[in-house]
């Protein structure tokens, strides 16, 4: 009896300890994150008993999905999330492959490469704006070199329909982030696998494609997913570097939510939730595609 009591207590303590340790974080996530999501869902369904709205309906969602502008925004958002992710991964791999070689000044360049990790996106956006606008720094250099006379001759890169300005900023900021991870993985792998592949007759491309890439990709996958999820829901950079219409979904959602006409509130909230839903699906799809790609050729 006594022994079993003791056992029970020991079990309770060892089990309970974990929950005591986790509880502050859980309270925060449950109340603020899940609470916010739940309240948002209710709001998007027009269900707010406190102010007398007792009949939930799908009006907000109907309004979104019947609006042609929404689909334009959605396509733009997908483009703005996926394109820079792939470009950043490609650039990061390229820089990683070069930086892992040993050469003079390697340390300095590795530090320089990671320099803009903690630099804020906004500052990057302002820098890109000053560089690439039609009267920007590059346009002035183009003029000095005699390539152009008027600002209007410089290609529209900022606030443009193809979101080039946004993409440049994202690639500029996230390439080093993914690149540092690539570099860390490459260094932990070493060069033994490649040496083996080489003695087996694999050429340069084959060594990269069938030896290095499958080893690097799982790590790259995790960071690039986080990066893509960020792009999908980002507001600040598209607001500074994007065109006015159609804008990215996040910008549209904020526009609706902060609209003076309160009837637009539920539409803004619903839009934010749709962004979250599509973004989550996109993340899982991306992970699934990458896994398949790695496995089938590994």
């Amino acid at each position: 009896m006594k022994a079993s009591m003791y056992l029970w207590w020991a079990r309770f303590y060892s089990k309970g300890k974990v929950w005591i340790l986790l509880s502050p974080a859980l309270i925060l996530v449950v109340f603020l994150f899940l609470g916010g999501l739940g309240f948002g869902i209710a709001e998007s369904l027009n269900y707010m008993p406190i102010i007398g709205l007792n009949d939930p309906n799908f009006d907000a969602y109907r309004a979104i999905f019947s609006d042609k502008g929404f689909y334009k925004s959605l396509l733009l958002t997908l483009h703005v999330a996926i394109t820079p992710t792939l470009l950043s991964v490609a650039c990061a791999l390229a820089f990683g492959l070069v930086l892992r070689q040993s050469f003079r000044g390697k340390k300095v360049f590795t530090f320089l490469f990671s320099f803009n990790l903690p630099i804020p996106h906004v500052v990057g956006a302002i820098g890109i704006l000053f560089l690439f606008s039609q009267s920007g720094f590059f346009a002035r250099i183009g003029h000095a070199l005699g390539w152009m006379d008027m600002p209007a001759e410089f290609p529209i890169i900022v606030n443009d329909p193809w979101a080039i300005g946004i993409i440049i900023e994202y690639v500029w900021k996230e390439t080093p982030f993914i690149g540092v991870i690539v570099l860390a993985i490459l260094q932990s792998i070493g060069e033994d696998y490649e040496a083996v592949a080489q003695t087996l007759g694999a050429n340069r491309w084959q060594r990269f494609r069938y030896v290095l890439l499958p080893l690097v990709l799982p790590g790259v996958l995790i960071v690039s997913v986080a990066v893509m999820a960020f792009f999908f829901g980002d507001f600040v950079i598209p607001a500074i570097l994007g065109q006015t219409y159609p804008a990215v979904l996040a910008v549209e959602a904020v526009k609706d939510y902060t609209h003076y006409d309160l009837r637009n509130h539920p539409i803004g909230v619903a839009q934010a939730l749709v962004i979250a839903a599509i973004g989550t699906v996109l993340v899982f799809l991306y992970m699934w595609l990458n896994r398949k790609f790695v496995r089938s050729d590994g």
Partner: protein
Amino acid sequence: MNRIIRWFAMTMIIIWVVAPFIPLWLWSFSLRWRFPNLLPEVWSPRAWLYLLKPSSGVLDATIDSLVIAVVVTVVSVAIAIPAGRALGLYRFRGKRFMEFLILAPTIIPGLASVFGVHGLFLRYHLANSLVGVILVHLISSVTYATMVMWGVFSNYNPEFEEQGRVLGANPIRNFRYVTWPAIFPGIVVAALFSFLLSWYQYLLTLIIGGGKVQTLAMLLFNFARSGDRPVAGALSIIFMIPALIVLFVTSRYLTGENAAVSGLGGGR
């Protein structure tokens, strides 16, 4: 061939790091800088002097940003240490679900929950207040800080605490002299991470603060869109100061190619 590629890559890295900052500095010291000129026609410290004036609101915004970020950092780390310990050291039923729950805010953008949080805060009189802004900043800061501490505790050996206990240390002394030194580098990273996340936060502050709470990030965003390039340039440089401090600290604490530093890429 290899050499040429390397030279090209190194040149690209230099351009990558330097290019966006050149026009920021030049604009911040210019009074007039019309199109074809490569350098400002009239140099002036006007933008910098303007930012120093109380009427520009920069001083107040800096104080607000600092107060919010420091509180968020302290609370995040205090929450992340036990949470990271639970996830990194113990196996328990429901662990996967807890991991998923705590990591969810990294995948689902803050935009999705912030409108609902705003609705909740309006009811409990937390909207348009500093406390409300701090609470909403905590969501992402705690998530990222927990990720860092989770990694730290995955490589942590609790048997040293056992030894401390055997040698007669009480739990407080044990934490102070055994656990704390072992996890300190991780705590530094988690703290820097939380600070930057809060310092850079724009959207959540806008929605929850409702314009009543003015942080430096909000001021900078407004100037970025206003078209006053000298002021936007100068304020950008001020806004980056914590990032530069972080670079300096991390390069000393976490020497060389430490993957932990890369976590700071989350500086949004």
